[in-house]
């Protein structure tokens, strides 16, 4: 178990360089689950990664919240059930939207009806996949973004963005389950926290071209 790495680390007296280590130790001693600690430290890093992919590469995804949550779900409930349910929800939402296209309804009523479809589908799917309540709720919640994009920009863009979101979720999953990072969080949480903040500050000031833009503007004289 990953927690065992903490056993060998000796903590000095409380100070500005090791206060997070003390907090982690305290939390674990009072019964907080280690996954929680890892999540809280690594989710900001996943979020930073999502923004890095947006600003350095140019992949959009559905905002920042959705891919981060997807990564967490994939990590907590395993890649297969999470991914399948994600795809099932998207497929049902698309189908339902096609069905509802002919019926003229008010915007919110239509959204509510799409939710109805999604929930019924998830109910069916739960016979095959074992997922925690929270994961299911979050998955349903992120469908909202998907449906919104689908209504506003059409299914093509919605599916492209969802695929990008899924890729981002997978990359996030890799980060979350990378033993090296997990050990870094537990052994050097100060470096992790500070590093994530610095990474975000740097990304937020980046004014260069995105990777995909080099392709988009390849015909222009440099």
């Amino acid at each position, binding site marked *: 178990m990953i927690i065992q790495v903490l056993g060998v680390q000796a903590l000095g007296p409380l100070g500005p360089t090791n206060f997070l280590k003390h907090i982690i130790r305290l939390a674990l001693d009072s019964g907080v689950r280690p996954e929680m600690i890892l999540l809280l430290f690594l989710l900001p890093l996943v979020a930073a990664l999502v923004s890095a992919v947006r600003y350095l590469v140019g992949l959009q995804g559905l905002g920042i919240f959705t891919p981060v949550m997807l990564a967490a779900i994939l990590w907590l409930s395993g890649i297969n059930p999470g991914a399948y349910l994600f795809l099932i929800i998207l497929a049902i939402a698309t189908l339902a939207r096609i069905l509802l296209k002919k019926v003229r309804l008010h915007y919110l009523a239509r959204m509510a009806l799409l939710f109805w479809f999604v929930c019924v589908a998830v109910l069916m799917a739960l016979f095959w996949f074992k997922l925690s309540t929270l994961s299911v709720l979050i998955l349903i919640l992120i469908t909202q973004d998907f449906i919104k994009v689908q209504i*506003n920009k059409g299914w093509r863009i919605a599916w492209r963005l969802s695929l990008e979101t899924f890729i981002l979720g997978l990359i996030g999953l890799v980060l979350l389950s990378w033993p090296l990072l997990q050990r870094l969080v537990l052994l050097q949480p100060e470096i992790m926290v500070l590093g994530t903040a610095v990474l975000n500050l740097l990304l937020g000031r980046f004014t260069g*071209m995105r990777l995909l*833009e080099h392709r988009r503007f390849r015909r222009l004289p440099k």
Partner: protein
Amino acid sequence: MAKSTHVLGINARNRLYLKYNTQEGRRVADSKLLTKKRLTKAGLPTPQVLATFRTPEEVLSFSWEKLPDNFVLKPCSGFGGQGIVIVKKKAKWAGEWYLMDDSVISVSELRSRALDILAGQYSLRNQPDKAFIEERIRIRKIFRRYTFHGTPDIRIIVFNKVPVLAMLRLPTPESKGKANLHQGAIAVGIDLATGITTHGICRGKVLRHIPWTKRKINGLKLPHWNRFLTLAVQCQEAVSGLGFLGVDLILDKERGPMVLELNARPGLEIQNANLAPLKKRLERVEGLEVRDAENGVKIAKALFAERFADRVMAEEGIKTLGVWEMVKVRSAQKKKVPVKAKIDTGAWRTSIDEGLAHELGLLRPENILWSKVYKSGLGQEERESIELIFYLAGRKIKTVVNVATRGHLRAPMIIGRLDLGGFLVKPRK
């Protein structure tokens, strides 16, 4: 990763140039109705608003039958052309209209679209929105073979009161009459100096011809180009807080260029349409002292002309002459008499045949300025010089000409260098 310094990417646009647009400026640009209000106040032309809807009750109580034959229903804060319904003409029955693709739309469908708009289906961030009905600007004849079921518009990016890039946006079958690139319209670059189209691009692919009419895309000269440019800069002067601005303009048959809307976050595809990197242009313009719109347009024309622009402008400002030209000579009776003349850059003064001059009554003593002995290819002879007014290629020229016996020569008149200022002579024509 190769670092490109001249192309404007989204990161650079957002961080370096959108800071010139204040919150207040964005508020105006994001609301088409507020934009219209501000522009009208500044005396700039915009298409007329026929009705506005703020509440669902207004939609339900509106008498749609009273609308003119064609109109456009738009969301006030829509973006990328979403939610817009373009109505072409009345259908057979009252309360039904044809859309641009000849499908029929009924009052109830229009009403429900208006309600969707109010509910925020098409607005930025899905906030509740207003809807309005605007007159439809019809397609000008020159664009007819370039567009499919819709009116093209012109996007000009203005920075620091200088137009920096412009493109023509042509509706396609895919875009269903709308001129938005995200809907599949064609983007065509425009040379800023002359208003002549350069390259076309659609969904990232280069186009040389309009796919359905095979019409060549480059070389179309837009009418009223100066007015387009000036109007775009005037928009920036009229709405404060929009330092980096995209202006969408449309051409009306009677009223000329009009402003459709302002854009506080103009897209970057315009670079591909022009094959010109935007950042380089922005940097050249940044910090310049620009007095007014005319000044800004002049700067743009001087800085950003395409390579062919000199030639085109020269042809516009300077008339080109062939070797043989018909001129009109003003006779003593103030009549314009056509005379065949040879353009002769080897001669200094213009000369006219004595017989012809006599015929026109130009050899009366009071018209003769002086007589002088000249040496020429014809030997030594005394020639009179007279004052003469003639018209060459539409220009009036008042000058002094020599009278010579030219009856045996091919042209009764030659025009010399003295009177050829401001003309170009084509040696072969």
